[in-house]
């Protein structure tokens, strides 16, 4: 039996790597992937806690997180396509209309 704390540490490490990727990547698609990575890390923590307390609610939350992530990916990638059509670039530094 693997201790629950191992899963939580793994989840924290994956979330941290997701944050690092989110900050350091310059490609819009890769930044989206970093968001998916963070959602996955949170899902792992949810399942680990569901196992620890033997409650099903954590799994239901993971289910909803997966549904929302799929919807977000569909809309987000549509936005990415529109941005690349308008700007001819995938670099986030070229999308600076709202930048002060």
């Amino acid at each position: 039996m693997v201790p629950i704390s191992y899963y939580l540490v793994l989840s924290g490490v994956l979330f941290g790597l997701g944050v690092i990727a989110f900050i350091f990547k310059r490609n819009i698609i890769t930044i989206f992937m970093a968001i998916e990575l963070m959602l996955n890390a949170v899902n792992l923590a949810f399942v680990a806690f569901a196992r620890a307390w033997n409650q099903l609610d954590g799994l239901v939350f993971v289910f909803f997180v997966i549904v929302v992530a799929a919807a977000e990916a569909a809309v987000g990638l549509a936005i990415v396509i529109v941005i690349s059509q308008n700007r001819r670039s995938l670099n986030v530094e070229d999308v600076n209309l709202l930048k002060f």
Partner: protein
Amino acid sequence: MNLPLILFFFCGGLAVLGAILLIVAREPIHSALSLILVMVSLAILYLLLGAEFIAAVQIIVYAGAVMVLFVFVIMLLNAGVEQRTNWSKMAKYAGMPLGIFLLLEITRWIWRSTAGPQAANGAGAVPAAFSTHDLAMALFRQYLFPFEATSILILIAILGALVLAKRSE
């Protein structure tokens, strides 16, 4: 070292390796493939935790649908090598040490505060896997309203994607 522990370290190591590859890869398609590696190894970890349905959904929805969408968009837009940014002085001297410190501190606190869940787990007793039947019961009784709300959310997402994809005249 028992088998679950070996499996955990193998899959956890694969997941962390995939996440690091996602960061260092220059081509977006390499990042996408390493993210698929992370998702598959997380699905094996879900199986290890006894959540069979979530593992199946992880493979089908995440590694299947969402990542295919990502790969499709990468190929559609012909995304090439990304430019690197130069690190600012602030990130180098303040951000990086603070980030590592935060990670270490979170790890330390998680290590120290495991008494509650561990005691609830029955200390070494292997509980039965979550049955999909019980999950369906919870989903369609206790959580029926959020379940229906997600269907409206998906409908809105479809409409939004259609509106964005429509060629403006």
